């Protein structure tokens, strides 16, 4: 067994030598903190025993070793639990809508870019929102959404969608509309990234394939369905993966948009990361904060595994 493992290492020892610092780095930076995170999630690590660090006692008697997990997932009187339930649903909706809209807008934008001249200029212009830091987007849109003075309601009023009585104008940062107040700026910031990836994907498709199909009498729609879509799957899969992971972990945008940086999005505007942050770091409740993070991480690992299973064959074609 050892001999079988050792053989490829000996065979490619120079390559392994070059890889060793990276492997060590990955072990120290990624793997050890992950193990530590899981370890902390089993501890009763909180404000009162902060000084004990990893020597904090295991979760109390009667609740079992998984007490922190049970508490955050099932106990209705646990503030973490209630916040988590709202935040999970908000995050699922947020992630699904933002990823789907960014995907289709990015694809549409990339296809349109193929038809216009000065592609570089337009691409640079369109990618601009993506380079704005998320916390700046949160702050700026927090002002845009204001009921009485925000540019959104003012514009809707100027276009005739809203009447003169400002007190009847929609409130974007309170109540059910809060979800859209989060989703729209996130799409605004994210779709250019999808556009960029799809544009790069389109450039890798050889022109001669289209020309051959054209000679065979395939119309535009058939060429799109039979050539563009299959060959864009690798780029599309990356857009999906990035969208799901990035949006599920969204933090700066909701934190800065609500309550002048207090991050209080209310029942409809609270996402998972701000909830975990508040409960963990404003209360120093590391045990349950780590448990919530592990649950989120396992959920994300499941999604990434699903993604890999769905797109594996397409990704392997890239080799």
């Amino acid at each position, binding site marked *: 067994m050892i001999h079988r493992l050792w053989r490829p290492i000996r065979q490619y020892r120079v390559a392994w030598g070059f890889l060793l610092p990276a492997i060590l780095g990955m072990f120290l930076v990624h793997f050890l903190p992950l193990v530590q995170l899981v370890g902390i999630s089993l501890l*009763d690590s909180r*404000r*009162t025993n*902060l*000084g004990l*660090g990893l020597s904090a006692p295991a979760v*109390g008697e009667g609740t079992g070793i998984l007490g922190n997990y049970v508490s955050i997932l099932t*106990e*209705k*009187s*646990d*503030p973490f639990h*209630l*916040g988590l339930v709202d935040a999970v649903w908000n995050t699922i909706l947020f992630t699904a809508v933002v990823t789907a809209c960014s995907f289709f807008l990015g694809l549409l934008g990339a296809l349109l870019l193929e038809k216009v001249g000065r592609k570089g200029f337009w691409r640079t212009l369109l990618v601009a929102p993506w380079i704005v830091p998320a916390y700046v987007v949160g702050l700026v849109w927090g002002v845009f*959404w*204001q*009921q*009485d*003075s925000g540019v959104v309601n003012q514009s809707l009023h100027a276009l005739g969608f809203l009447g003169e009585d*400002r*007190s009847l104008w929609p*409130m*974007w*940062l*309170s*109540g*059910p509309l*809060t979800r859209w107040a989060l989703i729209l700026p996130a799409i605004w910031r994210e779709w250019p990234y999808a556009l960029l990836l799809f544009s790069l994907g389109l450039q890798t498709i050889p022109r001669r394939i289209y020309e051959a199909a054209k000679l065979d009498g395939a119309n535009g729609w058939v060429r799109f369905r039979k050539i563009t879509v299959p060959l864009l799957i690798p780029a599309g899969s990356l857009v999906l993966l990035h969208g799901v992971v990035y949006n599920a972990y969204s933090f700066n945008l909701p934190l800065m948009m*609500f*309550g*002048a*940086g*207090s991050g*209080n999005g*209310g*029942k*409809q505007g*609270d996402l998972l990361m701000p909830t975990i942050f*508040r*409960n963990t*770091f*404003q*209360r*120093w*409740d590391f045990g349950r904060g780590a448990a919530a993070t592990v649950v989120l991480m396992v959920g994300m690992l499941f999604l990434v595994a699903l993604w890999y299973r769905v797109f594996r064959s397409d990704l392997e074609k890239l080799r």
Partner: protein
Amino acid sequence: MRKLPMLMLGVILGIGTLMGCRSRDTLPEGDGKTRLRLWAMPNTEGPKDVLDQILVRFRAQNPDIEVEVEIIDWGAAWDKITTAVSSGAGADVFQLGTTWTSSVTAMGGLLPLDGLLQRIGGDSIFVSSARSYMKPIYADSITSFPWFVDVRPMFYRTDVLAKAGIKPEDMFSNWDSYLTGLRKIKAAKVTLEGQRVEPLGIAGKDWNVFHNFYPWIVGNGGGIINDLGDSVLLDDEKSIQGVMAYLRFFREGLAPRAYLEKGAAQVSHEFDEGRIAVWQETSSKLVYLERPLREGGDNSPGARHFAAVLPPEGPAGRKLFIGGSNLAIFKSTRHREAAEKLLAFLTTDSVAVLAFCKISGFAPALEKTFQDPYYRENPNRVLFRDLVLSSKPYPAVPYWGDIETVILNKHFGNILDIAAGNQAKDPSKDKEGSFSEEAVRKELKTAAEQIRALIQREIQSNPANAARLARLRQVDR
């Protein structure tokens, strides 16, 4: 041969890395002076210069002590202080938000100050409402001294009240007269300097969301938890009606609904710009409003026509929010005597306290400071002492921070979201985005249940706390 330069490079990089990791716990001491580090938050403009200016006298009185002032941002302060407590590596003297004192004391990282308190003449030198955080409920010792307090007068537009025919002394007398006054302002449809003036400004879901509700809950005879911190009052009828009394301002249109989406700084600006007649804010607002034009003061309608007044009295009396900061010493200090001198100077030297409060606009915690003409002769500041004496501090229990930051701010934010909705046609149906008293009650009940569970867990998890609580209950009886 090629190995040698690589080895040297490795050694240099290694030493560089280790030097980069060198602790900043201690300051160099080569000239025989004791060097102290003071951590303070930005309480004023140019906070470091202000403190250095105040410390000039201390340095003259104590030539053997050097003080290095470090300003830490409010957003990072909690992390930095609690990390310092648990690691034993921090400054010598540091500022502590009053509601943090119990938590940090419970972590066991603060130096007991009972001896120092005895030497300076006991706690009666501080105003009574600022004393509760000096020795938190579960603590055995005094662990901090009050430095300054954050109290919140009401600011009103003198010209608006005059135009609406309202006498301020009548309007701000009690909750009923206050409500009547606001309704009168609304009915008068006052327009001044080309702007329609709304009666009241209240901020929405920002950091202060719970502080704003609090006086209406306790003023109505309710509360959040009792003074011992072992039973929950939030779902009592008086507390619920206190919350409803506050929400009435939005529901009746006395405070614009749009303000539910604004933070305190934004609504404060609305007052300055002349768009609201009444606004409650921390006393430091006076520094801004009173600043003469030649010193960069404001010429806005708010600054030209304002006065400060005590908030109205509720059915259970005038019980107001009080915040502020204490000063404490880390147990890990190696300069106990010098640190105590510095802490005593900043908190009990009336010249130093007055100088700081004049610049920051906060009210002093040191009782004798109020005898200064600065407070006795100014019509707006004369009410500062009454504001301090009318305030009711939050219970000084270690878990108050958890209750406030996670449970109360969340649920009271949700309540403001409910208040923003249209009146529910059928209150028994919990329709998202609609307002009903039932929805508010439900939110308060959930918050109360969570606080109960949290208190139970806190007391159960710490047998020493349970024993102390039993003793305190006996004394209370």
